[in-house]
C-alpha cells in the first residue's frame, strides 16, 4: 500500500492508529464503496485526530520539560 512508502519516512504508527480509529468510527457496516457520508467522516475524523495529536504533543513536551 501507499502507506508503506510514507511509513518509513513519516510514521507508520501514526498512519495505522489514525486509519484504525477513523475506520472504526466512520465505517460501521462496510459496503461496496466508501459512500459520501463515510468519506466526509474519514476526512473530518483525520483532521480531528491530528488536532488531538497536536494537543497531546504540546502537553507531553510541556510535562517533560516541567519535570
Amino acid at each position, binding site marked *: 500500500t501507499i502507506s508503506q512508502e510514507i511509513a518509513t519516512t513519516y510514521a507508520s504508527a501514526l498512519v495505522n492508529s489514525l486509519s484504525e480509529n477513523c475506520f472504526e468510527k466512520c465505517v460501521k457496516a462496510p459496503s461496496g464503496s466508501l459512500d459520501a457520508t463515510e468519506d466526509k467522516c474519514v476526512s473530518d475524523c483525520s*483532521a480531528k485526530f491530528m488536532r488531538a495529536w497536536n494537543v497531546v504533543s504540546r502537553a507531553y513536551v510541556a510535562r517533560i520539560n516541567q519535570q
Partner: protein
Amino acid sequence: KEVLAFIQQESSKAKIQTSVTQFTDMCFKKCVTADITTGTLAAGEEQCVSDCLNRFLDTNIKVVQLLQALQR
C-alpha cells in the same frame, strides 16, 4: 544473487501474511458478531469481511493522502 532474491521474496511474503492477519483480526471482530454455531462463514459475513478489507484500504490510502497534504 538468487539467494538474495529468495530472501527478499520470503520476507515480503512474511510482511503480507502479517498484514493479512492484522486485517483478519479487525474484520473478524467487525463482521462476525453473532454467536458461533458453525465453522463456515455465512454469505453475509464473507461479503462483510471482503468489503471490510477493501474499505479499510480505502481509508488507509485517504489518510496517507491527507497526511501528505498536511506536510506540504
